[in-house]
């Protein structure tokens, strides 16, 4: 097992840090109106080849692994970059690459890679339990084609997406469909999310749809695992900066005539935050390597989510508390990190959900064998 980045990976990290860093100062302005991210930055990411990072070269991709994806995701997390890299490239993009027909791949992936097409998964439904089952959208086959009826919401970046990968009921099964988001029968209402982004309510009324290969719940589950791994890396980046920012604050902020770093009760809590961070880093890197080498494994992803969830709560809560009053203001960054971490953790199942997933069948499992 080797946790170190090679030269190319380090170069990738530096390049991503560079391009994202350029626009970091504009975040408040950029996120204050739709789409909530910067099309120029998006174009820059496309030029760097990042928007096709995990796709085959056949489809204008870079053929990179989850490790490289994780590097990008972590940098996104570090500066809370609002660009939808994970949702579009890792979520919809890799799902298409994994489960789409050749034709769909040839049609969609190069456009995603070039930045001209925004595709996202539309699976969420109001008050639906986390999982791969669709309840509120029904697929109907007629005249050799398919139509969808029902509501998906909240769909992150759903308002600006060009293409939606929609989960829908086909009898007892859940199947995935490709839908032109601008077509007749698709009505979208965009609203703000609590982490400075946008999501949409999407109503399908006889909207034309094409099956994504023969993808169903298994393909969606695999997509979730890829997303969870990337979100985990994003969360890691956000937690890393949360700890750095908090430590920096303790070193400079004065109270009662001395810097906060003179208060042992506070520095010990910073030490605990750092400890949590490093443990979460290990499990994030491990889950990323496992995905890269062995492909999606829901148990690995749940272990990751459980640990990231616990750590995100610890770090985001403590980072605000140690900042005191300014920690709860929008002017300071730390609260935005907390907001992002709070939402991220509930995006694909809560901490408790994933602990329960790991607990399921635990009696019949032996000691976790890490090295083999």
């Amino acid at each position, binding site marked *: 097992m080797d946790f170190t980045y090679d030269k190319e990976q380090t170069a990738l990290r530096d390049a991503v840090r560079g391009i994202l860093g350029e626009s970091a100062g504009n975040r408040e302005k950029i996120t204050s109106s739709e789409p909530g991210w910067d099309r120029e930055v998006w174009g820059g990411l496309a030029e760097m080849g990042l928007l096709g990072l995990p796709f085959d070269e056949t489809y204008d991709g870079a053929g990179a692994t989850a490790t490289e994806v994780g590097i990008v995701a972590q940098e996104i997390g570090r500066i809370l970059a609002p660009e939808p890299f994970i949702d579009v490239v890792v979520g919809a993009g890799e799902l298409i690459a994994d489960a789409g027909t050749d034709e769909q791949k040839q049609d969609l992936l190069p456009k995603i890679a070039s930045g001209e097409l925004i595709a996202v998964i539309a699976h969420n439904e109001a008050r639906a*339990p986390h999982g791969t089952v669709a309840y509120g959208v029904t697929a109907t086959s007629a005249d050799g084609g398919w139509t969808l009826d029902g509501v998906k919401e909240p769909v992150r970046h759903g308002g600006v997406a060009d293409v939606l990968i929609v989960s829908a009921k086909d009898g007892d099964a859940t199947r995935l469909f490709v839908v032109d988001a601008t077509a007749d029968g698709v009505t979208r209402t965009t*609203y703000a999310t609590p982490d400075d982004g946008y999501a949409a309510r999407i109503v399908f009324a006889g909207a034309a749809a094409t099956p994504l290969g023969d993808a169903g719940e298994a393909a969606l589950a695999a997509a979730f695992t890829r997303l969870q791994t990337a979100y985990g890396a994003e969360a890691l980046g956000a937690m890393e900066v949360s700890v750095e920012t908090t430590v920096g604050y303790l070193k400079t902020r004065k109270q009662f005539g001395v810097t906060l770093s003179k208060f042992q009760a506070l520095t010990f809590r910073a030490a605990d935050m750092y400890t949590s961070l490093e443990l979460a880093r290990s499990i994030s890197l491990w889950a990323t390597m496992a995905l890269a080498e062995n492909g999606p494994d829901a148990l690995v992803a749940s272990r990751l989510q459980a640990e990231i969830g616990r750590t995100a709560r610890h770090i985001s809560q403590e980072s605000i*508390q140690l900042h005191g*009053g300014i920690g709860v203001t929008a002017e300071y960054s730390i609260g935005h990190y907390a907001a992002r971490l709070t939402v991220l953790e509930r995006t694909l199942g*809560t901490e408790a959900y994933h602990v329960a997933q790991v607990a399921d069948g635990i009696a019949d499992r032996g000691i976790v064998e890490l090295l083999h």
Partner: protein
Amino acid sequence: MRLALSAEDAQLQQELREFFTTKVPQEIRDTVRSGGELTKEQIIEAQRVLNAGGYAVPNWPVEWGGKGWTPQQRHIWLDEMQTAGVPAPLAFNASMVGPVIATFGSQEQKERFLPATANLDIWWCQGFSEPDAGSDLASLRTTAVRDGDEWVVNGQKTWTTLGQYADWIFCLVRTNPDAPKKQQGISFLLFEMTTPGVTVRPIKLIDGGYEVNEVFFDNVRVPADQLVGEENRGWDYAKFLLGNERDGIGATGSTKLRLQVVKEHASLPLADGSRLIDDPAIAARFASLENQLLALELTALRVAGSSKDGKPDPVSSILKLRGSVLIQEVSELAVDVAGGDVLAGGAGDDSDVPSWAGDSVPTYLNLRKVSIFGGSNEIQRTIIAGTILGL
């Protein structure tokens, strides 16, 4: 040792329950129950209903509208009010400046301010915290210099809650910069927010809302008769005020209501017909929070009334410390109950995502403040360790 209420207290409880659930507009109570935000007008309306019924300022001296209640009766009042979804009387008026004026103010000040304060004809805000002072309140730098019949105030306050609604401010100012200790040389001044030289800048919070403000003073001229009590004794009045502020500080009534509402949400069926409350792990969190709230409320009842002579009972630090953590934990549970729906923060009425779910993250983020404002939990631990344990 006695568990049951006396006949008298049981009757008071019934009267209050009747009053709160019938006299205060349902719409206001529903908004509170659902965790929504009240308008300024609703807050004023609710307090005037209470004041008309004689229930706005029970802790004041009887001649100014107080009730002479026992601590337990005050607890019943607060608990019935909060669990009925009735907004408590504005703390700045009822718990803070009112008792200070009633105790230390001149007769003229009492007559001028107390009735209007009880009825929320004046909306007060608190000018205590300053940018570089934080938890170290006594390091304040805002100055007031005497010039004839006026004080000239310069400086800046911050974290001024609802300052944007306020008509008047009660403000700690440094009137003697040469006092040997930082706690000395501070005075307690009252003035209108419309006085020339007062500027309010709202601070946006992480939930996107506005409730605290920076308040700047640029040569604000304040009539000398608006100084409360004696010059340079403002720190004593502030300590008295902070002691009163701790009444109901555990906020057990409103946290109980919040927990109950979250439980109702968790008891609704999801898309697949299952209910989160039937998940033993979720149910255990509700049970544990309910038990802890019970312990906190019992503790509030147990130590009630031990705040004497205007000095806060240090045990009230326990209530603030644990009360803030519990309300935060309830809000965290609400986020988990909302699950993936948390994304719908800005969804409108046509959304299928219920508003409580979309509001859950902003509320959770907003409530991080309760362990920071009003004496952070670190300050409370310092008080417990120092004053109670002698460490």
